Every structure is written in structure tokens, then in C-alpha cells.
């Protein structure tokens, strides 16, 4: 079976991650890319070279007028996700929407409602859900190996290096926020997959009146766990995820997607390799595999979204899951306070506080 597929938004995310995965899927006969949509004809032309069957369109409306793909991948700017997803549902297509699902709670709610009304799949591209280490960590926590009173620290930061082709990610109007929307979406979803429903207890960032945050710190609580998330676009942090419980502790392996490190209280560290696999094709009893790289995770995520269309299997992240994270992020922004940057001279800290974006309301 070959499914027809459309891509809306042919920028850097599509170019870096979706393009190689779709080339593989097309070469293996699972999909045929029939339409590429982007207002920049240079971008669609560049990608069209890899997909000979694909037509190039400036808007989703133009594309849906001539084709109804089985699955529409939405990788446009976040403030356009809702509009583009709704067009797809109206046309009868299923949707895999790149993260962040939407730039506002209202948009995310409209997407979930539209998918439900159209009886179509709405999958959200949270690639980290495909990490085998997540399965291993979840199993360890569920087994009680860490005990109770779980606390964690999740830090992820570095100087931004993503080769973006526009500045939409750095403007509140188009992106909805900064590093919290970008990295935080992934991190909060990863934590939600481990611990359940998140509740933002505290939030501070460094965004000023006209800017978006490049650093933030979140106090976040889950049923049975609480901790801190710290994110940065502007500087390296001591990156890692560390969970501590009454009976043991766990960290993600620093660079292996399939491993965690675990130790019982007072015991030596051991590396646990996950045996988790994902379907690699659309056959009922087809080949399964373990993703080792981020790019492979994207491949398996698309396959799983296609299997949701063909076999009715669950997607890794549903629209409702995505909505939960959009709600959590919204809750963070609603309680935003200035992040204390203690290395700045006092006069600058005072200025930073007074010019924080939350003061404008």
C-alpha cells in the first residue's frame, strides 16, 4: 500500500529531518509525496527535485483543490499550524503536525476539535517520544526501582545553532514565545510521558518587552514527582536529566538514545540498554527497529503516524497530549517573573527586572 502525502512548510525542519525520512519511505514504496506547500517557490523547487511526483503550491488551499493526501505533514510556523491543520481536516486528510502544536491554547483546542469532528488522526511531532531510553526510564520508574518522593532536574542549553531560514522563531507574534516553546515543548512532553500530567508551579525567564525568552527556569509538578527544568538558547548549560528517589536514581545516557544509567541507593551506576522497538514499515507483522539517532526517530514517528491511518494504531503523541503541553506552557507564561541573572551588575539586574515582558501587562 502506498499512501499519498503532502508537506506544508518546506523550511529548515522539513529540509533537515522530514526530507531524508520521506525519501526513504518513498524509496521503500510506503508513501508518494504528492504536494509541497510553501509561500517561497525557491524552497518548494529545491525539495521538488527529490520527489518527482510532487506538485508545488503556495498555499494549502491551492494544493487541496487538486489533491487529497492521506496524510499532511505540517511544518509551517507555529502560528499557522491551526489554520493549516483545519484546512487539511476539511479536505479529509489526516495530520502529523510538527511541534509546537500551536502558538496558543485556542489554536490547539480548535485543532483537537476539528480532528475529532472530521474523524481524522491528529498526531503531534514530539520526536523524543520515540527514544528507546524513555521506554526504559518509564519501566524503571513504574517498577518502583527509584522508590517514591521523586525529584528531578532537567537542563538543556547551548548557543542556538539551528540553521533557520526566517526569524519567525524569535518573534512572539509568530512563535508564541522563545526557548520554552522550542525546547520546552519537547522537555515537558518527555516528562509528561514519564510522570503524567504536568502542573507549572513557578516560571521565570529573561525576555524583555519586545523579545522572547532565551533562558527560562520552570518549577513543575507531576503526580508523584516534582522538579526543575532549565533551558537556554544563549549559553551552554550542564545538560542532562537526573531523577532522584528514595530508593535510587536515574540519568539519561549523555549521548545514547537507547540507554539510561541507574543505581540503587548507595550502589554502583549501571547502564541499562532498552530493547524497545518501533514498526519500520506498514505491514501488520513487518520489520521493527530501534532508532539510534534523532533522524531515525523522525522516520519511525512518520511510520507510526501512517500506521495510525492504515491500521488505526495509536500515534505516539495525540492532539490531546499536545494540547496538554500547550496548556502547561500557557500556564508558565501567565505566571512569568524575571529570571535572576546573578552575574549581571546590580544596576543591570534592576533594569532587567523593570523591563521584563511581564511588566507590560
Amino acid at each position: 500500500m502506498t499512501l499519498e502525502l503532502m508537506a506544508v512548510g518546506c523550511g529548515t525542519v522539513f529540509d533537515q529531518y522530514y526530507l531524508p525520512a520521506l525519501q526513504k519511505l518513498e524509496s521503500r514504496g510506503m508513501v508518494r509525496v504528492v504536494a509541497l506547500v510553501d509561500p517561497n517557490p525557491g524552497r518548494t523547487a529545491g525539495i521538488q527535485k527529490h520527489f518527482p511526483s510532487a506538485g508545488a503550491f503556495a498555499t494549502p488551499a491551492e494544493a487541496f483543490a487538486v489533491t487529497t493526501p492521506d496524510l499532511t505533514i505540517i511544518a509551517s510556523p507555529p502560528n499557522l499550524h491551526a489554520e493549516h491543520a483545519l484546512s487539511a481536516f476539511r479536505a479529509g486528510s489526516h495530520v502529523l503536525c510538527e511541534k509546537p502544536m500551536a502558538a496558543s491554547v485556542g489554536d490547539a483546542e480548535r485543532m483537537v476539535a476539528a480532528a475529532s469532528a472530521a474523524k481524522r488522526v491528529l498526531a503531534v511531532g514530539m520526536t523524543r517520544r520515540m527514544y528507546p531510553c524513555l521506554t526504559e526510564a518509564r519501566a524503571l520508574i513504574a517498577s518502583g526501582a527509584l522508590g517514591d518522593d521523586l525529584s528531578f532536574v532537567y537542563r538543556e542549553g547551548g548557543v542556538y545553532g539551528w540553521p533557520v531560514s526566517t526569524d519567525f522563531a524569535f518573534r512572539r507574534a509568530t512563535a508564541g514565545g522563545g526557548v520554552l516553546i522550542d525546547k520546552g515543548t519537547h522537555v515537558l512532553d518527555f516528562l509528561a510521558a514519564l510522570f503524567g500530567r504536568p502542573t507549572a508551579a513557578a516560571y521565570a525567564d529573561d525576555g524583555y518587552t519586545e523579545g522572547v525568552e532565551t533562558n527560562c527556569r520552570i518549577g513543575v509538578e507531576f503526580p508523584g514527582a516534582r522538579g526543575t527544568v532549565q533551558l537556554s538558547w544563549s549559553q551552554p548549560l550542564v545538560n542532562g536529566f537526573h531523577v532522584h528517589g528514595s530508593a535510587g536514581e536515574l540519568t539519561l545516557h549523555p549521548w545514547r538514545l537507547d540507554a539510561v544509567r541507574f543505581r540503587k541507593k548507595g550502589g554502583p551506576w549501571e547502564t541499562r540498554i532498552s530493547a524497545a522497538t518501533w514498526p519500520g514499515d506498514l505491514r501488520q507483522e513487518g520489520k521493527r527497529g530501534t532508532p539510534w539517532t534523532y533522524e531515525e526517530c523522525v522516520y519511525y514517528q512518520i511510520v507510526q503516524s501512517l500506521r495510525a491511518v492504515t491500521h488505526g494504531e495509536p500515534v505516539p503523541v495525540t492532539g490531546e497530549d499536545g494540547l496538554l503541553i500547550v496548556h502547561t506552557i500557557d500556564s508558565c507564561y501567565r505566571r512569568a517573573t524575571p529570571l535572576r541573572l546573578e552575574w549581571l551588575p546590580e544596576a543591570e539586574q534592576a533594569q532587567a527586572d523593570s523591563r521584563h515582558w511581564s511588566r507590560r501587562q
Partner: protein
Amino acid sequence: MSGAIAILGAGGFVGARMLEMSFLAGRTDIVPVVRSFRSVARVANLGMSHRLGDASQPESLERALAGCEVVVNLTTGDPADILRTTRSIYRAAVASGVRLLIHASSATVYGQVAQPDLPDDSPPQLDHWMPYAREKGLAENFLRDMMAERRLDIVVLRPGLIWGPRSPWVIRPAVQLASGSAYLVGDGGGICNLIYVDNLVRSIEAVIAHPRQVSGFYNVADDETTTWREYYAAFAAGLGVDPATVHTVPADRFRTGLGGLAEELKKLPPYQWLKYRLSPETKSAIKLRLKLAFDRDGPAQSGNSASPEVTRDMWHLQTTRHPLPTSRFKAAFGHQNRSSFASGLAASLAWLRFTGFDQGRAQDSPGQGSAP
């Protein structure tokens, strides 16, 4: 001053700090210029409007400089591009009617500061082994020739090692001290020639504010003369690391280790050629397989056990014998070093704590590891 101040390299370490200081001081005449949109991210919190300008495309740079009276060149990048970029920036500045071009060079053009009281306009050492130093020297010589043409005022600043929060010269010693791989060459008596990033920014601001033409070469450095022994000892004390864990390596000559060889290999043209041509997917797959092949995957390290990896640039820096003379700058622009070594150290340690740095965990260092 009526025109705006263009900051080229606004997304870099010094550029970003200059924007932050200017923004928090309420300045509205700063125009950040970046080569690509990704550089905007580092300072996206300020919400400033950026202009795109690529020194490899002079016409784009000329557009970016429209209406600017001053250009501050803080660009960094491949050493092979330094001279070409400098020429391009100069030409765009002239074409745009810029009054003053401030060019950030480097004290490395001198090599190791081989004599005390080195005149600021001493010619650069063009036979230096380090490509970065050679190319910076060639760029200086180009600007020296252009100063003679007097089409605009050109000030070349030569900072030493720029340190402070977010600086590689803070991250490196902290990481080394935490992992037990810190080392001193000989007795550690070599001179660091530091300049705290805020002092450098204030020096640039003083040049911009100067009312008269001031073309020339000026060294800039902190007031204190700090040896490498003192620098590492200060960080060790601040991080709670036993200074006895700092290794000593011979000062008589540089000996290449495995790490040094790997660094040299990365500078070779075939490596650079491949680096920019392989797809991200292929690069991650190669990296992963190399790591899996060589990884011993032991338990989390408790620190203080790693061997030093002596690099050629660090060995040479640590054998610098004299402080950089800065009297010429002070005579022309006044004393701008409001941050002392003690206050800079306190700020750097506060920043390290903010990043989550904990000396007890060797793998826990800024930028190390990755939360997938």
C-alpha cells in the same frame, strides 16, 4: 553623534554582551548585524531589530550599514576568511559613509608578547604557527594601509583573552578543574593577559564616544597582571577544587598528545571539506558509531581523574612572559576597566552556578553531554 552604531558579529560572545549592556543602559542607537537568522536567537530576549549582512556579499553588507556612523567589527569564524571579511567590511563602511570603523583584532598577533613595553603599533608576527594569529595579522596590515588613505577613522583594538560569564576562557578552566585535567606549563608563572568582557565593551564604547579622530592600534587588557597559576587557583578556590589536582607539564618545549593530534586533524582541509558536505544524518550516524566503538561506558565519573590534554595554543599562551602594555589606550580614551579581577571572578562563578555546574561531577560541565 547622529548616526547609528552597527555591531557586526552581534550574535557572538562579545557582540551579544555589547548588545545586552547597551540595551540595559537604554541605548537606542545600536544596529545589530548578523550573517544569518540563527545568530538572532542568542539575543532574541532583547527584541532588537536585526539587519542581515554577510561579509562575503559586500552589497548585502552595504545595505546593512545604511545610515550607520560607526561600525564595530566583532565577527569571528574561519581564520581563512578573516582577511577577506576585513576587506569587505572596510569597503562597505567606506561606501556607506561610515565615520569610524572599530576592528577587534587580537593580542595573539604578537605571538607571546616577547618583550616588556611592546609598542602598540608593533607589526604583527606574520610567521606565527597559528593560522588565526597570522590571518589577524594580515587583516591588521590591510587596515594599517587603509589608515594611510584616511577615508575613515580606523581603530584596531587588540584584546588578550576575553573572559567572563559565557566565555570559553571560563568554561575551559572550570571543566578542566572539575575533571582533574587542568594543567599549568612549568610553574604557571606565564601571564594570562586577560580582559573582562565588560571592560572590553566599555573600551569600545569609549572609542565610539571619543570626539576626535583617533586612528591607530591599541592594546586593551585588565588592570591586574594575572598569572596562569593565579587564574586556575582562583577558579579552583571558587569551585571547591583541590589545587593540588592541577598537573604540571614541562615548559621547555611543546609535546603533542593524542588530543592535540585530533585537534590538528580537525583543522586540515579534508576534515573541513567533509564537515560542510555531509548531511546532518550522516554526521550523527558517524559520530554515534565512533563513540560506540571507543566508548568504555564506565559509571559516572566522580572527577579529578582525567589526564591533561595539552594543546599547542594553550601551551603557547601559558608561556607568555610579559603583560600586554595598555598605556596608549588609557592615554587616548581614559581608564575604562571598571570590573576588577575579583568582581569578574565572582560574576563568572555566579554564571557557572547558574548553568548547573557542579565540580563533583566530571561529566557535568557546561555544554557537555546532551539531554536528548
